């Protein structure tokens, strides 16, 4: 873990654009690991930035109890790329290739918590792509959703929607 953090720190210092800028911001993950980031990166995270603004910049250590030290580096990486204007299709493809379904969901929640609109939009699309063309059962497992319909209710609904379960229009996927 320590190694991962330091490598993250290295990459941060390399990409630093303004070394003379004000003090770094410390983001503290839920499992108590400190990540030092440039204020410009914190700006990408609206939740963090509003916290800093509210305290007139006096407080620079921000606890993020909902985000683990596993997920935070990904978020920081994305924000770095974002401020550098280097979010490309290639970067995004590489970025999600490393992530399994659970990780994508965790990051999605983290992006929501930190209020990073771009990351949230991007991950929404990633999840949507991963469940597109899948069965209802797959989506149910993916989201861990309990079926709370009574058997009668479900049967009625399925009857009403029966045609959507048939293969009459397999070319439907671009019909958004």
């Amino acid at each position, binding site marked *: 873990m320590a190694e991962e953090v330091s490598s993250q720190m290295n990459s941060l210092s390399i990409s630093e654009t303004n070394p003379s800028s004000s003090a770094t911001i410390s983001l503290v993950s839920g499992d108590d*690991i400190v990540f030092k980031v440039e204020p410009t990166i914190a700006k990408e995270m609206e939740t963090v930035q509003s916290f800093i603004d509210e305290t007139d910049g006096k407080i620079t250590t921000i606890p993020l109890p909902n985000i683990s030290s596993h997920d935070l580096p990904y978020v920081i990486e994305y924000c770095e790329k974002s401020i550098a204007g280097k979010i490309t299709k290639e970067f995004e493809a590489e970025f999600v290739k490393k992530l399994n379904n659970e990780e994508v969901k*965790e990051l999605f929640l983290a992006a929501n918590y930190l209020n990073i609109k771009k990351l949230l939009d991007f991950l929404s699309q990633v*999840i949507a792509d991963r*469940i597109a063309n899948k069965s209802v059962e797959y989506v149910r497992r993916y989201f861990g959703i309990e079926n709370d319909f009574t058997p009668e209710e479900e049967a009625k609904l399925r009857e009403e*929607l029966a045609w959507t379960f048939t293969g009459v*229009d397999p070319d439907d996927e671009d*019909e*958004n």
Partner: protein
Amino acid sequence: MATAEEMKNDSVPSLPMDLVGEILCRLSVKLLLQLRCMCKSWNCLISGHNFTRKHLSLSSSLRLHYAKYKSEPHELIHNSYPLDSVLINIPTKFKERRIHFDMRQYCWFLEIVTKVFPAFGFGYDRLSDNYKVVVLYYSESYFKLFDRTKVKVHTLGTNYWRTTETFPFGAVFDHDPILNGVGKVPSSFFLLILRRSLIKSFSLLIMQRSVTVG
């Protein structure tokens, strides 16, 4: 303080509904309708007006939708075209499929279909934030086509058809030029709708409303 591993195990992420909506609004209409069976809250979300609007606003492709009636057997054929192809008269990438409709809708359509050679169009009307069904038909003579083309407009959720001014351009109904790949697209038909409203995708709303219309 929890370790990263513990946090991971704790959080079998169940996403809050507003976030679920963010994801679902990017899915195809067909999958969304299937997903109504998932649970009550999803059914409620997907059926809701706000979600429908959000889905529509994210919809990337502009398509025109067009329904043709066919007798023997009685059915409606749905065609959809990318908007550009209609505007520049390039007959590409159309799709054709049978439209599902239950008996109630069937009667509702038949009432219109008894006119001669009807053609249907569906469209989203931005002004009224609702969907409209437009039907063109010949009222009497087969020969004075240009004079006899009538137009009726139905607003989804209401149960009447409004007759509009006579269709000014005439239209050809006995064959579909796009399907045959010849002649001009019946673009006048679409243009009529385009002038009334900006047409967007045949989307969730109409699929859901179509069950209750009539």
